[in-house]
Each structure stands twice: as C-alpha cells, then as structure tokens.
C-alpha cells in the first residue's frame, strides 16, 4: 500500500493553508542536534506483494511437514471457531474504531461490551463483570489486588501450586515490589490437600487463589476451598476455564468472591499466545474495587437506551495513582469475539462442547494409559486435559509423537511445581472437541499402543 497518499500539489496546498513553506518547518521545534541525520537502519521497504511472500515464507517455517494435530494444552487450547466470529470481528467498523471514550461515536462497541459483561455474569454465576482484561495471568494479579484492598490485608496472598505456573509467575512479578508474600501451597497429588490449605490461611491472608480445572486438568473441591477462605475472612478467587462452565459448577454457585479466566477458548485463535482476553467477574459488593472498564446502560436525552463507560472514578484517567489498576483499555476485539462465540453457542452448544471435551479426553486417556510405561499421574477427576507419567522419561514420548505429527504437552519439567515428584516424567495432554477418535487412535498407535 502507498502510505504517502497526498500528491506534491496537495502537500504544497496543505502547507500553504497552515502557513509554512516546507515539511521540515513542521519539525522546526525539534532542535537540529536532536534530529536523526541519517535514515533509520531498517530492512528495505517491501511492496504488498513482496510482503505477502515474505510472511508466507516465515509462516511456512512454523509448521513442519504441513498439518499437525494439536494435543497441546497448558492454558491455550485448540477449540473450534465458528466462521461467523471472523465475519463479525473483521468488520472494520469494529476493528478500526477508537476506544469508546466518546459514547455517541461508539454505541456499537459499547453495547457489544455490555453484552459481553451480561454473558460473563451468566457464565460465572456472579453479579458483575468488567469489560475484560489483558489475559488470564494478569487477571489473576488484578483480582489479587482487588482482594488486598477489599480486605485491607496487604502482606499475604495464598495461591495453590496447581494454578497455571505462568499465572503464579505473573503474580510474583506484580507482588514483588510491594513486599506482599505469595505463599504457594504444594499440590503433590494433582489436587489440593484441604488441611494444608486451612493451616496456611490466617487472619492476615487477603485471598486464596485456586484454579478449576487446575493446571493438571483436575477438578478441585471448589466449595470447600471457598469455605476455608471465608473462615479467615479472606476472599476466594477462582481461575476457571470458560469452556468448562458448560458443564462444571459455576464460581457463583460454589461461593467464589471473584472469578477470573483466560477467555482464549471462546473463539480466539491460538496466535502463539496472544492477544487473548482476561475475564474478571465478582460479587456486587466489590464492584468499586474492580479494575478496568465497566459498561453501563442508561438513557439519552430522547429516552433511548444508551451505553456508557461507568464508575470511571475507579480508573487511572481520573484517579491516577489512587486508581484500582493502571489498566487503560480493555481487550476490545477479543471480548467481541468471546461475545459472538457465546451468542452462537448458546446454552446447548456450550454444553455440547464441554461434554465432547470430557468424553474425548477420557477416551484418549484410556488409550494412552493402555500403553506399557504410560500411566495417569493423578487419580483425580479431570475435564479436558490430564497428566501422563512416562516411566522412561517424557522426552522420548514427546519426540515419538512429534515425529508422527502430533504435538503433546507442555512437559511439566518446564515449570516448578512445589511438592511434585518426578515432574520430568510428566506431560499434559489436552483433548478438545476438535479431536477425532481416529486422531486419538493414531496417536496411541504412534506411541506404541
């Protein structure tokens, strides 16, 4: 595309209109000694055609021998994306719109975000949702900050070792500067030991963070976890998989105060880890502690239904250093995708996706564990992914699978899990509704089953 669209005549006209003689006059206020006296040292420009060829070449290097089958999990999943989502999200009225500070110029997006919030409330069973955050990991950190303010406890946060290790790392990064201790509870058996939780929580604890299904795919005793948090006056923060809510109990049902989630599964492609969307919903009493944007419904001068940014006094552009968060924008386009996804799936569709994941994951587990030397690492109920333990180490298994065109993982040895023995023998296997019996059978055969 030509970036310089104005003809020399038009440029001269524009300069005349504003009363300067040359383009360099426009930069006159930048002292000469600060101006770069050479072109930037960048690769040469490419035309659209060349650029396409270049990117295609790079993209081709990312897939070995064409089509691969994805059994990868660990926080990002290969779920089915209905075509209608791209049809909506690629409408340039949505993707080239400005952030909705001017309500009258942004009614389309504002209503879509309002509907996103409504859908997230239904999904989580909680009272109020914000208009989205960056992604699952930062959503956990933002929820932790909410809890610290709500409880006025700033010294101790308790998180289960079965929470996504990268979320725990992000939380550590966020807390390191403010001298708040992040206590990680070991989860050697795949789920949490409630007695250990009770012993770790005390009246200084701001919140208990758990994940359901947890990083190992296993289902936690959420209700009991929420109760133990409540006993010491701490908030219960549940990090959930939104797809699982087509079947599993909702955070509002088991007593969570705040629910957060990585929303990637809701119609957002894998795109090498981002952009995704961070979901955050809570009970009504915490609404003024929420980070990020909230959209409210109101009426305009003519009495028409209208949508606006709401309770903005929480936010950085008004409250500055006293804001509930430094987040400026939401994750607009990704929240839109999630909204369209949930509208297309509806209650029946979401339930079907969840059930298919469960059934296929269990079938895959039964096939893989029939192979000598491979067993399930944990004896707990699981949703769509599970941990296998490979007697002869996990690397050989991963390589064998890869050579046959299947990606499994991640290997647990990549991360630190307090209390977990022989992590280097373990890896995750995720099975979404997209996987077929045939693919699962072929994987099992490739691994010697």
């Amino acid at each position: 595309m030509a970036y310089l669209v104005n003809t020399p005549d038009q440029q001269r006209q524009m300069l005349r209109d504003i009363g300067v003689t040359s383009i360099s006059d426009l930069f006159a206020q930048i002292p000469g000694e600060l101006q770069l006296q050479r072109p930037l040292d960048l690769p040469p420009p490419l035309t659209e055609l060349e650029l396409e060829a270049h990117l295609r070449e790079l993209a081709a290097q990312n897939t070995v021998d064409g089509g691969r089958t994805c059994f990868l999990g660990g926080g990002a999943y290969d779920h089915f994306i209905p075509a209608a989502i791209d049809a909506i999200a690629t409408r340039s009225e949505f993707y080239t719109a400005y952030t909705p500070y001017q309500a009258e110029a942004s009614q389309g997006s504002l209503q879509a975000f309002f509907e996103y919030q409504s859908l997230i409330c239904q999904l989580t069973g909680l009272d109020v949702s914000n208009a989205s955050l960056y992604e699952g990991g930062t959503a956990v950190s933002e929820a932790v900050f909410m809890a610290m303010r709500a409880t006025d406890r700033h010294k101790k946060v308790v998180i289960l070792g079965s929470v996504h290790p990268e979320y725990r790392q992000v939380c550590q990064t966020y807390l390191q500067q403010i001298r708040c201790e992040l206590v990680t509870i070991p989860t050697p058996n795949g789920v949490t030991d409630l007695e250990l939780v009770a012993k770790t929580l005390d009246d200084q604890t701001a919140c208990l963070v758990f994940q359901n299904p947890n990083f190992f795919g296993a289902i936690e005793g959420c209700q009991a976890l929420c109760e133990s948090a409540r006993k010491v006056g701490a908030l219960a923060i549940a990090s959930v998989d939104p797809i699982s809510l087509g079947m599993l109990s909702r955070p509002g049902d088991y007593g969570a105060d705040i629910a957060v989630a990585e929303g990637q599964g809701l119609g957002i492609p894998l795109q090498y880890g981002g952009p995704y969307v961070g979901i955050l919903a809570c009970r009504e009493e915490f609404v003024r502690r929420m980070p990020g944007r909230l959209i409210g419904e109101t009426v305009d001068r003519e009495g028409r239904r209208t949508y606006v940014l709401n309770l903005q006094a929480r936010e950085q552009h008004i409250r500055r250093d006293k804001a509930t968060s430094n987040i400026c924008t939401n994750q607009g386009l990704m929240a839109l995708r999630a909204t369209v996804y949930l509208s297309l799936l509806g209650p029946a569709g979401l339930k079907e996706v969840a059930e298919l994941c469960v059934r296929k994951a269990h079938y895959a587990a039964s096939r893989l564990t029939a192979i000598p030397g491979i067993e399930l690492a944990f004896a707990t109920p699981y949703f769509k992914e599970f941990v296998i333990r490979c007697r002869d180490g996990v690397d050989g298994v991963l390589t064998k699978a890869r050579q046959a065109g299947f990606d499994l993982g991640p290997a647990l040895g990549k991360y630190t899990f307090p209390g977990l023995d022989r992590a280097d023998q373990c890896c995750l296997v995720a099975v979404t509704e997209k996987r077929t019996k045939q693919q699962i059978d072929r994987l099992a055969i490739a691994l010697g089953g």
Partner: protein
Amino acid sequence: MRNTQATQLLFELSSPGRRAAVLPRSDVPDIPLDELIPVKYRAATAPKLPELSEPDVIRHFVNLSTKNMSVDTHFYPLGSCTMKYNPKRHERLSGLSGIVDLHPHQTEDSSQGMLSLLFSMQQMLGEIAGLPAVSLQPAAGAQGEFAALLTASAYFRDRGETRTRVLFPNSAHGTNPASAALAGFECVQLKSTPQGFVDLEELRKNLDERTAVFMVTNPNTLGMFERDLPEVSRMVHAVGGLVYIDGANMNAICGITRPGDFGGDMMHYNVHKTFTGPHGAGGPGSGPIAVRDFLAPFLPGPVIVQSTDATGSIRYALSNPDKSIGRVRSFFGNVRRSERQLPARQTEGCAARPAGGSLHARIRRVGESDQGFAGDHGDGYRQASARLWVPRSHSLFPAGGRGSANDRADRNRIERNARRVR
C-alpha cells in the same frame, strides 16, 4: 435505514430452542457422564445464555457495527491516540495459517519462522527507539510502563540503591502515576510551565537521591516537543535516576528523532498508535519496551535471542534475561498485534522521512503545537459530545441478571433528570 429490531439486546432476541453452532456427535465410546465426572462437580443446569440462530447473531452484530464511528468510515482527527488507516494486507497476513494457529507451547524448532519474525521486530524497535534492548512481553502501553518501572527498580536494587520516588509532569497521562503506584513507588507530580513544558526549576527542586525515574511523554500530551529533554536527562542522571519516555506520541517523531538520542533510558511503544495494530474499539494493545543496554539483564522475559550453530545456520530461541523481573503476562506477548509492526515499517520504510501520508497527523502533533494546537482536543470533541446528553451511571447490571429493582429505581430517577435537562 436502521434496523432497530436487530440491535435489541441478545437476551431480548433469544427464543427457546434456537441454535446457531451445532457440534458433531461424539465418535468415542459412550460412557455415562456420571462415571467420568461425578455429579457433585457439575452444574445443575447449563448457563443461561441467549438462544439464537446464526442469522440472528450476524444481523445483531452487523447492525451494531453501524453504530460505531471508525477510521474506515470517518475522518478521525483524534489528538491523543493517533487514529490512522492501516493497510488491509496486514490484517490478512496476521491471519495466515502458521501464524494465527501457532500454539504457544509448540517447540522452538517448529516455531522458527515466528521467532525470527519477533526477533527482527525486537531489532527494528530498538533501532527506531535508539534504545537497543527490547522486550515484547507487555500486553499494552500501560503494562509497558509498569514493566519498565519494575526493570528500573530491579536495576537499582542490583546496585544496592533504594529509590522510592517516580516524578512526572502534571500533564502526564493517568497511566503514568497509576503504573508507578502499582510498581510500589511514591508519585510526585510536578507543575508544568504556562506553555505546557517540563518546568526545569520545579524538577530541580524535587530531584534527589530518592528519585528513581522521571516519566515524560514526548511529544507531550499537549502535542509539543519537549526540547529541554537533554537537559532534563542530565539533571535526572546527575542524581542517579533514569528517564522514561512514554511513547504514546511516537508516531509524530518516528524516524525524525529518537528517544535514546534525546535523553530517554527506557520507553514503551503503543503499536496501535505508532504501527499498524488496529485500535479494535479499545484493545488489544501491545506495549513493547525498549531500554538501554545496561538495563537489558532486568527486562521481563522471555525475549528472543539469535545464535548460529556449528553448521552456520541461524537459530532463534526464547531466553530469560539473567536478572529478569520475571513475567508480566503468560506466554510471550500480544504476538498477533506485535507482528504487525514488521509489515508496517517494512512497507513504509522509515527512510521516507517527510511522510506526506502522515502529514496531517504530524501537522497536528508537532508543527502547529506552538500556536496552541493543544486545543486540538477541544472544539471537535465538545461539539460531538454536546449532541447527546448522557446521564451518568445507572445500570451496571446486565439484562437478565440481578438487581433489577434497583435498576428500575435508578432508571426512573435518571429519566426524571433527563426530562429536567430537556
């Protein structure tokens, strides 16, 4: 002709039993669900989502889209956040198979194309900033600020220094103080000169050994180039502090002057402003940061590194800097956003310096500012807002959700107010 029926709320359009997406039947052996997931873990009913057909959904959102103003539909002369046209090819390329469907846990071997792309982006962003060490992790500009402040703080800690204060002029964007507070610093707001520049005297009075970072946007929020920044930088460095450049207005000076050359030690980019990430009605952003060499070991990781193996072929890998502050988000960054910077710069070629295409933007940003272009935000903005009186807050709670008695009370009150105003 507006279709007002289709833009009712999804819950109002819903009718029981309507379906859009339909999934294939299960092809694995049928085992009762109770044996797979005990009933105590399951919800009694499916979530109450709206029930719609695909045409219902499409019509709803397509009609909603027509209620937006956007770059593709209108001239959007917005001062503070650089609204510009992005080539359609970039949107298309970011959706290529091999990019859009790449799983973040895929091995480095099977992601070499992506890693090479991200590596060259780090290089280019470093060159454009004049600050060579780059991390693509931050999810948005505000998170870039936060990450850079943590980076600075780790650097000071490493030197055995305790510095507690972050300074910024009162014209700073709200994210600056909010990020500083989040990073555990005390915020000190400095008054600006009557012309809207950094007040050197005021700065001098507030600089001391407690100063960690001075944050400044350049060109500043009023659209003017802070020409005293080299002096500001000398003053801040003299007390051992660092200078942070908020890159919000980088578009105006890209290729003309560089933050690293006018005194900055760290900066963030907003790729939707400076390059070709779409605004998306508020995100996703992407806020890569660039810093001086001596800060590189503290950057958030992973970053992408290049090496040459024994056979002479180039290989890219993810690597955590030695003394990294850690992750600021899961996975690697808003890759599909960041990746648009590459096409943007390559097609544009920063060599095309007096960029006529961005002439308008630059006139508004840099050229006219001395003559009071601060008012840029003014009339157009106010005029537009005045067309519609929007009362403040009433219902935060979703249709079909809770709290409807309060909603009604609020709505009545607001309607009364609305009548009074009329």
